[in-house]
């Protein structure tokens, strides 16, 4: 972290003071500059006043305010990374937030390590958008995005065009959860049955994973979508 000269500015929006307190303590210790807001209006003011780099937003704000904020941020054309905090059983809420433009989510209660990983992935993604790297590497997998060559443990793996498209979509947002709808749109150009997506994920896993029954590269976020493991 010490390499990055400016401290990333995080805005934490949550109506629960204990949550804000522990996030402030931990994130500050991790080198973030933390701003806080307890509701929608305070969040909007904070977003306008401070040049915020990352938004951590509770979906459980009173009156669906969380979704409103995501929408306003995206409508204003901002690419501000947004991580939402959501409850366990609310898959529909997560998908809605992601479809509205949130970058990722963490389910309450969560461990700090998990949130930090999401924050890192989101910030990296923002950097990546400025220039795609030609070679993607994670664990045993390496993908040459220019030559379209996929290598697993130094052996070339043949992928069908559709499988490659899926993998490329995942690599472009590595570390981030991608909803079924997003992936289908990216790969098929339209919404098809989620079953096809599952079939392609299975074949990809069989070709790429060391143990396809216990996948590590392509992780399933049940009820939401898939996530490709981010390079360390």
């Amino acid at each position: 972290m010490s390499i990055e000269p400016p401290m990333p500015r995080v805005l934490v929006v949550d109506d629960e003071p204990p949550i804000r307190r522990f996030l402030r303590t931990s994130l500050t210790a991790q080198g973030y500059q933390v701003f806080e807001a307890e509701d929608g209006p305070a969040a909007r003011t904070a977003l306008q006043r401070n040049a915020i780099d990352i938004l951590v937003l509770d979906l459980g704000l009173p009156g669906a305010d969380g979704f409103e904020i995501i929408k306003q941020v995206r409508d204003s054309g901002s690419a501000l990374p947004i991580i939402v905090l959501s409850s366990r059983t609310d898959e529909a809420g997560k998908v809605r937030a992601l479809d509205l433009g949130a970058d990722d989510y963490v389910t309450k209660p969560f461990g700090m390590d998990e949130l930090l990983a999401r924050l890192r992935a989101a910030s990296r993604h923002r950097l990546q958008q400025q220039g795609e790297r030609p070679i993607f590497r994670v664990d045993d997998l390496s993908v040459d995005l220019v030559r379209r060559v996929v290598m697993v443990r130094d052996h070339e793996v043949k992928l069908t065009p559709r499988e490659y498209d899926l993998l490329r979509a995942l690599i472009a947002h590595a570390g981030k959860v991608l909803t079924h709808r997003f992936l289908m749109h990216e790969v098929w150009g339209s919404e098809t049955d989620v079953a096809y997506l599952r079939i392609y994920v299975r074949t990809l896993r069989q070709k790429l994973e060391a143990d396809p029954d216990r996948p590590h590269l392509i992780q399933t976020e049940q009820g939401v979508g898939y996530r490709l493991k981010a390079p360390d």
Partner: protein
Amino acid sequence: MSYSSRMTDDARPSPDALLQQARQEGRGRLKIFLGAAPGVGKTYEMLTQARQRKLEGVDVVIGVVETHGRVETDLLTKSIEKIPKKRIPYKGRVLAEMDLDALLQRKPKLVLVDELAHTNVEGSRHPKRYMDVEELLAAGIDVYSTLNVQHLESLNDVVAKITRVRVAETVPDSILDRADDVELVDLTPEDLLQRLKEGKVYFPEAAERAAQNYFVPGNLTALRELALRRTAQRVDDQMVSYMRAHAIPGPWEASERVLVCINERPGAAALVRYARRLADRLHASWAAIHVDTPHVRRASESDRDRVAEALRIAERLGGQAVSVPASSVADGVIDYAKANNFTHIVTSTAQRSFWRELIRGSAAHEIIRRAGDISVHVVPEQLTRAMKGTSKRPAPTVAVAGRYSESKAYAGSFAMVVAALLVGLLLQRFGITNVALVFLTAVLAAAISYGIWPSLFACLVAMLAYNFFFLPPLYSFTIVDPENVVALFFFTVVAVVASYLSARVRAEAVSAREHAATTENLYLFSRKLAGVFTLDDLLWATAFQFAQMLKARVVILLPEGNSIAVRAGYPPEDMLDEADVAAAKWVWEHATPAGRGADTLPGAKRLFLPIRTGRGMVGIVGLDSDRPGPLLTPDERRLFDALSDQTALAIERIKLSEDIDRARMAAETERLRSALLTSISHDLRTPLASILGSASALANQKDELDKQAQADLLRTIQEEAERLNRFIANLLDMTRLESGAIQPQADFVDLGDVVGSAIQRASGVLAHHNVQVSIPSNLPMLKLDPVLLEQVLFNLLDNAAKYTPPESEIEVSAGRSGDLIRLDVADDGDGIPAQDLDRVFDKFYRVQASDRKRAGTGLGLAICRGFVEAMGGTIQASNRVGRRGALLSITLPIPAEQPQERAV
């Protein structure tokens, strides 16, 4: 009032009398102002007394008072609150009647109700005003009312005879008997006539001419005497009743009892009234008896209706009504009278038709002959006929459909005689001339096949044919030989008698068959009811049976909440119009019949009857049919009673078993609730205690703790918090399951994908376990909610980790069998005790774990079962065969359609 119990020597109060007193408590008190004729000043007297009561502070209102514009009376009503009358539209006009409901709602202490004998306009709740008064009394409201003596049912005939004016509006004597006070408003005939002259007596215009004949000194004196005597008799009764209730030793007169025999002949009602008057004079209790002889069973519907009507009148007049089966009228009457200590028998001359008397003798004579020490009063039939007036309801003529249509029967009889003729002619060829017996055979055959009239017809035809074809001179109806005249005469006599006897045999056989069919039906019905276990089935079967046996449309209503609602019908119908609903409600509140043909709310389309058991009313049956006349004949009424008794018992049986089920369920719920409390308090407190303890240790003793100890405490906090999180998640899932909030989002799912993500999620709890996965890659896709399935797998893995020691192996495998996919989670722990296998999926059930095992919440597997079943699958627990360990198996259906990969 009837008192049949004799006073015994020990001076205890008579239970009957005490009961009577007790019944009065809680009811309103009724005071009747009784007068001999209109114009004596009853209303005036009532108002005067009411005003006095009002001055005493009693809450008095006027329900209805007719002042007929008389100024003095009008003035009296001024100071008393009037409840406005209810307007009831009737045949294009609007009539006003006392507003019973408003009175019941207003609930004053005392209501003034003028003219007790008034008949309400059609569409009112009760046909008669005295019934309204009964309801007011039942509601605990006192009533003042007025009545002229001519309106008393038992005096109706007498008054008619005296004045030659018959009043149609009568009230049963019982209401006068039950009145708490009767005040005679007396005026001498001279004074009354004077008032009449002064125009102070109101008479409706239409009755003015009649009034002229009515108000003559002779009539008025007679009426006055009647009123005085009736009042005196009541005072007597009250005295006796009081003495009995207070065990005052009397000189009691020997208890007299009067029995009146009712037959199906016209005039029965008058006979009953005669008996009532006799009983009154004798201070006797009395009963009306009808003897159910085989002859009666063959009587027409209208005859049987007349009997039922007479019995009803008897009950209304305060007598007891009984019906006994016997082979003859005299047998039934004498046996019953002797067995029940009757001292008087009242009968009419005509107990039988002329013909039957000729053959079997007169019942009256036989009763007199066998009466022994019982006095027999024989009333001439002519008299009873003359008195029959008030039984004005025309006996409905219901065509009794025979087994054969009339014309067919006569044609058949004719054909039989023709056949006999042909046989006769044939026999004649062989020289046999005495063919009379052949014709006789034909007549007998007609009697057995078609009954009496067709057989008599056959008789006539046979006689003519015999004469025409066989008696010389042949082919003419003349007879020359006197011997043949005698022969023909005797042939005719024999034929008539024979046909009468055979027809009777046939009628009895038909009647027996019908009785047997009814009995059989009842028996089958009771068996059917015994086999029914749900209320709906029972009600449907009952409605059907009622409809079939009573030939009517049927609805059955049962209580629902505070009201009643239609639960079954045959033919199926659940719409009741307003009048029907009112009648049904009435039945429900008062447990007496109402609606069409009943005393209450006769304007309703249906007749509603209560279904009762010994413990009270369980429901209501509503009947209607398109037949004219009364809905139920006495026979059908008995049948209804038999059916409804069985139904009531069956309904009660089912309700009882439902009650037991509910009680059991309540107990079960209670058990679960306490288990939940125990579980929650334990499962929430344990991790919280660890977290709080560790955190406070870190906060307070940081300097004394070495790095290792601090790390241990921190790890405890983290692990316990995670455990708490899982428990709360389980509680939430359980709550969602039970509140029905689980709505599976079915989607095509790759089983391997779900297993993988579940293992990933469970990696924390599985840290010390070795998980083996074997899932064939060629399994078809499933269509179910992946989130729920992942949770199920997570719980199964969590469970396996909990009940096995570290480093154990957990195997997850899947396979296809038929159109199901089977998913197994097996461990190599101690397995599940055999007796627990059935219960591991029960909420809060935990296998008794030894100390080294981590405690479970008792929710995980219950949630698994709930989720799996919500997805249309099954889950089972067993122990592994051939080795140690538990095996939990899920089966999930393979969807009929698989996504087409090629289509991509």
